[in-house]
Each structure stands twice: as structure tokens, then as C-alpha cells.
């Protein structure tokens, strides 16, 4: 016998279900209840950084867009700093940017959009430079435990090539599943992404 090691066990995950909007985005469920609501707009007029739209879909194993999916994103600011006390890197913090947002997919098209800024490159705790990226968390009916992935930016080729996380992906072809493509539309910068839950193009998901 030994002394007992009294760690608790994490609470088990359960699917967010088809009606996740009620709790997290009630306006999408069809009603108005809270004074203050969370949204897919991460910026205020005073947020520093290049304004971008992130736009994409999550596809099931048949290639059909999920129309009841909810995404959250978490990202650093334009200086590469997360608005959190554990990030003690040198970049400037901004009161005007929490760095987090959530969005439900359109009930018809499955399209998910965020209005945010492009994050700066990040210095990790080992002092390595990480390419600019946005952390993504995905929940929906049929997803039993939230899925973690990332979005990198197509115009950051050199930074992406040196990124320590992208380089952990054994097959170079799979790295491209995490790259959002930059386009311009009516003078606005749009990065497009597709998240494939299954199939030959299955997105890289992380156990973080």
C-alpha cells in the first residue's frame, strides 16, 4: 500500500446538442434575454491591428456543412500578446481587445464568420517564435467533446514554415488543413477556411 494520491477526475464532456444557441447565443435561438451578449465581433473601433474577417464552414464526413455548429476563437492581439495574466511576454496589452469570440453557423448555409484583427507572431515560453494563429474550439450536436484546432494565415509562408506546431505535423500535406486563405473583397481582408471533420482532407485536431 501507498499513500492515496487524491487527484479528482475531470468532469466528463457531453455534446453541446442542437440547441446550444439558447445558452451561448440566445439571439440565434430566436429571443432576447441578456443585457450583454457575447458575439463574433472581437474588435472595438479602438482595437489596434489589421481588421480581418474569418469566414468558413465545418464539413461532416459526407462533405455537408454543419448548420448547427458553434465555434469559439481565442487569439493574441496585434502585438502577439494574449490578454491573460499567464502571458508575460513583452508585447503591449490592449484594453480594447479581449481576444475571444463565439459564432454559430448560419442555419441555411453553415457559414461561420468572425470580425477580428490579425494576431501578431507569438513568443512561446521556450522563447521560440510562433507564426500568427487563431485557436479554434468546435462544439455541436454529434461532437462528444469539443475539438481544438488552429487557423494560420496563407500570407505568412516564412513564419508558417518555421512554426513549431505546424512542424509537429508529420505529413506536410496535412499542414495545409490549418491555413486560411487570404483574399480581398470590396476592400476588406477575408481569410477563408474549411474544417473537415473526416475524409482525405481531415483537418488536424489537437489534444491540447
Amino acid at each position, binding site marked *: 500500500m501507498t499513500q492515496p494520491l*487524491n*487527484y*479528482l*477526475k*475531470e*468532469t*466528463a*464532456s*457531453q*455534446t453541446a*446538442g442542437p*440547441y446550444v444557441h*439558447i*445558452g*451561448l447565443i*440566445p439571439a440565434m*435561438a*430566436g*429571443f432576447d*434575454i*441578456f*443585457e*450583454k451578449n457575447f458575439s463574433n465581433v472581437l474588435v472595438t473601433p479602438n482595437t489596434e491591428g489589421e481588421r480581418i474577417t474569418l469566414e468558413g464552414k465545418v464539413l*461532416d*464526413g459526407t462533405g455537408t456543412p454543419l448548420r*448547427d455548429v458553434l465555434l469559439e476563437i*481565442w487569439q493574441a492581439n496585434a502585438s502577439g500578446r*494574449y*490578454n*491573460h*495574466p*499567464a502571458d508575460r*511576454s513583452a508585447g503591449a496589452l490592449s484594453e480594447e481587445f*479581449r*481576444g475571444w469570440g463565439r459564432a454559430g453557423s448560419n442555419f441555411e448555409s453553415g457559414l461561420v464568420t468572425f470580425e477580428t484583427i490579425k494576431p501578431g507572431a507569438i513568443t512561446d*515560453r*521556450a522563447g521560440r517564435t510562433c507564426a500568427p*494563429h487563431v*485557436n479554434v*474550439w468546435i*462544439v*455541436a*450536436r*454529434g*461532437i*462528444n*467533446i*469539443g*475539438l*481544438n484546432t*488552429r487557423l494560420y494565415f496563407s500570407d505568412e509562408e516564412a513564419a508558417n514554415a518555421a512554426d513549431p*506546431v505546424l512542424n509537429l*505535423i508529420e505529413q506536410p500535406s496535412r499542414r495545409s488543413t490549418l491555413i486560411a486563405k487570404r483574399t480581398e473583397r470590396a476592400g476588406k481582408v477575408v481569410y477563408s477556411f474549411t474544417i473537415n*471533420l*473526416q475524409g482525405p482532407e*481531415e483537418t488536424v*485536431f*489537437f*489534444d*491540447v
Partner: protein
Amino acid sequence: MNAQAPASRDPRLNRPEPLTPPLGDGGFFQRDRSIHPPAHAPGYKSSVLRSPRLALLSLEGSISEITGPVFGHNDLGPLDNDLIRNYAKDGDPIGERIVVHGRVVDETGRGVPNTLVEFWQANAGGRYRHKKDTYLAPIDPNFGGCGRALTDDTGYYYFRTVKPGPYPWRNYVNSWRPAHIHFSVFGSGFAQRLITQMYFEGDPLIPICPILTTIPDKDALDRLVAPLDLNASTPFDSLAYRFDIVLRGQRSTYFENRTAGN
């Protein structure tokens, strides 16, 4: 309502000293996936086409996941944790009045303070206020079905609501969900993000629910079932159920390590 955290039913949750030094911000403990439902759980049919089939890529906790959004009381309104009042139009909602309360702690037993807890549920008849819910049970004009709370310094939260009803859903031809409340919890880092569901002690639908039984571990399943907490009930007003939530623990960095090559 008493805002003091009462003693937990689990004595380990009352341990005064955390296992690890309080300022540790190393990575999170490796997630024990054996207590979570697998992504592909064929008894829950919706999971079949929505489950990744390739192995997850393990990331040693990076700054991107150790950090996460910070919320404060400014994000909430005064009625957000009172589902009996926060959508009432001309009276109280129909149903059994209950208080749900508990602590959000991590795997070391340390309370998770100031963290956002969100919850949503069907009304007493099992109907959701959602434009996509077409179940024949009626909408309750005085019940929205959602709320949120910020945990206090000890990780304690509470809210008031009516007990949700079971409802049918399309899985097998006669599948019914046990009464449940959906929970969304943040923690301090994005790697702790969790969505789960709370069930009620004694519900005969629990052992036959295709969603609940995706959980392969009997003890993990039991930990989603909230016991009646008569001591926390308010006589002649409402019963109480206790639901503690455990998020992943965080490693401490006891010694500074030199980076490789130095």
C-alpha cells in the same frame, strides 16, 4: 440564497491546501480521455459523421492554450443567474422550483475563481425556446431557459430555475433525453474549456440515454448526476441540487529549467 460555499459531499473538495503551489502556470494535466465519450460513438447516431477519424495531435501546453479569455461581473446582468425571473413576462414559469449550486474546482481540488459558467435547458414540459425545436409540448411564456454566473473566490456558483422535463429526440424511434441542464465552463485556460450536461438523481431515463451512455466509465457517468441537496433547499420555496464541476488541473513549475542547448 446563501452565497457561502457549503461543505461539499466529496471530502476531497474541502481539502484546505491545494496539492500544488498556487501560482503554478505550467501546462495542464494530460486529459484522461478514458473518462470522456469517444468522438465516434455509434449508439449516438449524430456522432458517426461528425467524429474525426485520425489521431489527435498532442500539443504540450503552449501559451496559446494555457491562456484563455477572462470575464468579469461587467459581462453579466443582475438577473443572469435567476431563470425564474430573467424572462418572466407576467408571472413565474411553470414547474418545480429548484436551486442548482456547486463548486468549479480543478483536478487538484483547488477552486476555480471568477470563471464563467453558462447553462441552458428545456422548460418543465421538455420544450426548448429555440426556433428549431418543434416538440409538441408548449413554450412557457415566462421561461427563457438560459443563464450564467461567475464563480466566487472559492469557485462556488449557484442559480435558480425550474426543473426541466425529459423530451423525445430522433435517434432510435423512441429515444428520450433524461431531464438535464447543459453547462458551459471556461476555467483559466482555453485547454480547460468544457461543455457537459447535468442530470438529476433518480431519473429512470439515465441508464438508457444514448448520449449519456457514450461515456465509457461508470464513475464518470455517475459524476454527471446531481444529488438532491435537502440541506441547501429553501423550505416552502425550492429544492436544491448539488453539481460540482472538475476542470483539468495545472502543473506547477517547481524549478526553472534551462532550455536545451544552454
